[in-house]
């Protein structure tokens, strides 16, 4: 079977799942977050981009796993949120899966372990919790024009392209050269503040 036929079959099955889910859910499942959609141009196509505020609104603090901002579409999240992400008819762009094989954990195997649906906007009690703000740091460059180091840990964010390319990438962190897919060849993780000291000196 060609990749294209597979793709069509896959889209059809997703459409079916979307249909099945929406027809089943008749009660108060108003899960879609209120966010301001922004039109965005990718490869000559107009798509809706998730804004930075939307990103923050889905997280308790920078680093917390986002809640799921849409109604349940079955248990296999990676059907839409695969390595590249995909456009879902009637729903928008499903961002790619950022997780690779992290530290021996199949962290994407049980998605609902960390990502939960928002099924109401009510709260049980108000909270004074203030979470860590979104981090907009830029990576250090050795000199102007040198590739920046990663300003954050790559743990559970091994698929750089998930956030840095494609329709769901925020402008500030959009990669200018998505065709080069071996990111860590040039961009290394900044894991320590220490400097090299020769033993014995």
């Amino acid at each position, binding site marked *: 079977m060609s990749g294209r036929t597979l793709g069509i079959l896959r889209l059809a099955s997703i459409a079916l799942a979307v249909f099945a889910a929406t027809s089943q859910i008749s009660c108060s499942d108003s899960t879609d977050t209120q966010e301001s959609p922004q039109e965005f141009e990718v490869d000559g196509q107009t798509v809706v981009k998730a804004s930075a505020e939307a990103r923050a609104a889905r997280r308790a603090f920078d680093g917390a796993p986002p809640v799921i901002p849409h109604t349940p579409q079955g248990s296999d999240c990676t059907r839409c949120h695969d390595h590249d992400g995909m456009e879902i008819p009637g729903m928008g762009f499903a961002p790619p899966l950022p997780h690779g094989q992290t530290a021996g954990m199949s962290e994407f195997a049980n998605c609902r372990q960390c990502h939960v649906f928002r099924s109401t906007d009510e709260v049980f009690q108000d909270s*004074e919790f203030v*979470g860590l703000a979104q981090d907009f740091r830029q990576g250090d460059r050795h000199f102007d024009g040198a590739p920046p180091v990663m300003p954050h840990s790559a743990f559970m964010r091994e698929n750089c392209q998930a956030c840095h390319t494609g329709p769901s990438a925020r402008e500030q962190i959009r990669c200018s050269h998505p065709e080069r897919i071996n990111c860590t060849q040039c961009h290394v993780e900044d894991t320590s503040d220490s400097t090299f000291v020769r033993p014995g000196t």
Partner: protein
Amino acid sequence: MATVDRREFLKSLGLVGAGTVLTSGDAEASATATADNLTWDKAPCRYCGTGCGVEVGVADGKVQAVRGDEKSPVNRGLLCVKGYHLPGMLYGTDRLLYPLKRKADGSGFERISWDEALDLVASKYQEALDEHGPEAVGIYGSGQWTVFDGYAALKWIKGGMRSNNIDPNARLCMASAVMGFVTQFQSDEPMGCYDDFEAGDDFILWGNNMAEMHPVLFSRMLEAKRQRPTVRIIDLAVRRTPTSEYADLYVEFKPGTDLALANGILHLLVKNNKVRRSFIEENVVFRRGIEDVETIGYGCFGDQSERYTFKDAAKESSFEEFAKFLEAYTPAKVSEITGVPESQIKALAEIYGDSGRGTVSLWCMGVNQHTRGTWMNNLLNNLHLVTGKISRPGANPFSLTGQPSACGTAREVGTLSNRLPADMVVMKEEHRAKTEKIWGLPEGTIPPKPGYHAVDMFRAFTRGDLKALWVQVTNPWVTMPNLQRFQRKPGDGRFLVVSDIYPTPTTDVADLILPSAAWVEREGVFGNTERRTQQWNKMVEPPGEAREDAWQIMEVAKRMGMGKLFPWPENDWHEAMYEEYRSFTVGVGKDVASYAQLKQVPGLRWPVVDGRETRYRYAAGEDPYVTKPSGVHFYKAKGYGEKAAVWLRPYHPPAEVPDDEYPLWLTTGRVLEHWHTGSMTRRVKQLHQAVPEAYVEINRADATKLGVQRGERVRVVSRRGSVELPVRIDDRGRPPQGMVFVPFFDENRLVNVLTLDALDNISKEPDYKKCAVRVERLEASP
């Protein structure tokens, strides 16, 4: 970075577009930190018994972020959704900030000072002691107590007030596992550890929804399966759960019939000669207890309904008698009892009997909250003892624990009515003597008779036999089974003091409420499921006048003239108290790590000897206490000649079964997003919004028969009470026809008004998993 309003901050980066809508919760939030100016320190997660390591990010005196600790061997950087949302748990606007005393007219609470509050507790306890003796005072604690809290409570009540009325909510959760290990190995806690997830081949889950209850361990297991596709997960359950979705084999049995299923597997192992006779001869003895159902009862009917004191009696038995006993459990008979097809029973026997594959049995509340929970623990340990699949990497019976320090505090410190630290019990004179010596008390201080176990404690308080009761770190007016019978009106002449961090149905009925410091607002030690002791530092100040539970106990003790029990300087006592506790554990195979060492590492698994932890207890080459050159050595079981005991345990039916009037099984439990009664997790926006209220899962066929729809509210009724709940059909859990499931986290919809207070005969743990109910449609609302 200076404090900036988040909106301002976003604006400065050009990120706030016109017409942007921030959700209500976010609009008020202001950002005060970036990753650069947080300080990070290690702690175990506050919630489940997995004991994941987290790093806690603090700025401006507040916890603002957490991340999974990549250095923790437990979770290697991964958390579950509760763990990721830990910080929010501290900041609900209704945190208890000051001691609150019930007003004289009973109409509510008024703020009082700590001095007044502590004097009041001391005087009420003294009054009860003077007028009614040590049997009239009690403390009900928790598997979420830190080691400090539990140790202070134990010392105060047993050493100070000379009463054994201390029990933890862990009695409701792992007491059956304790009694399983104690009756067979004469020492509590598992021989295996989490390394089994990478080493095992077959993981057999007995009534254990790990995907929701021990999520990070479940992910470790899934990862093992991804790396080694021959790994199999077998889910034995009474309803389909998210765990079942990942199972290679799903086996559904009728509630309570797991006893028959396990005996059916043992039957086939013996019959097909899949038992390891040489291992048995070297390492196993056989025992038999009282088996008559009439004599044993269920702890809740007739003359057992006020006090359940059944005591088992052991008889010697043999392999031959064991084989004969098992003859009755033929596949045909077991299939009839359990509803499991014979082919599946045979498949399970083949898995356990396959000497080439490592088998790990995993269980938690399904087995423990069971009217024959100790027996069921015995049978699971039996399966591993007769096949020799024990104390080896990847081959172990592994009882999972629910609470973060059910092992570390309740079980190891021994905060149970019958126990003392490090596997000792009040019934044994030499154990009492050792305790009295370490505590510097005269011989004969500690009474030899066990106090009230959890359910009996609340029965006694309701009757009025218990005059003063202190509840810490738990919420019994939500969690007691058959909750109706414990209803309380303050002013009944008894005194109830409750320490907590938020108002709950338990603080609602208290006479005095004490505000506690939570988690990283104080220094602590927890012990997790795999014997790992973990220490953390105080990282932020508690709000208002909240103080840690151990401090509260010590202050009351001092006011009662028992200050010499806690001889340490007021501002520097943690390490000294821990080291005193540690002296109980050293040299007896329960050696916890030193405080100094614990401060440096993400936990260590006891026994820790010469600074080295132990992965597999009783295994030669792993456990420093083993004196044999190879194999296993059950050195703690002195009473069995340093061998383990296989117990012959029959099948007994549950205490209450569905009938015409109440035709459905009710089973209860947790959900992934909420911790226990939700007093913490419901104050976290993301967790509450994911699962805002309890519900009843009904099978589609039953729903059709009843004419109810998804989302519709129905009344669930048992012989004891009723509760209204919205219906869920084909949701995350899918009960079979004839069963409903309700989670217990919701204080507005108390499922425990329905449950039966039937108890395990040996552990006295209640059975929350099985009772009979009916579902009624409500009148169509106008």
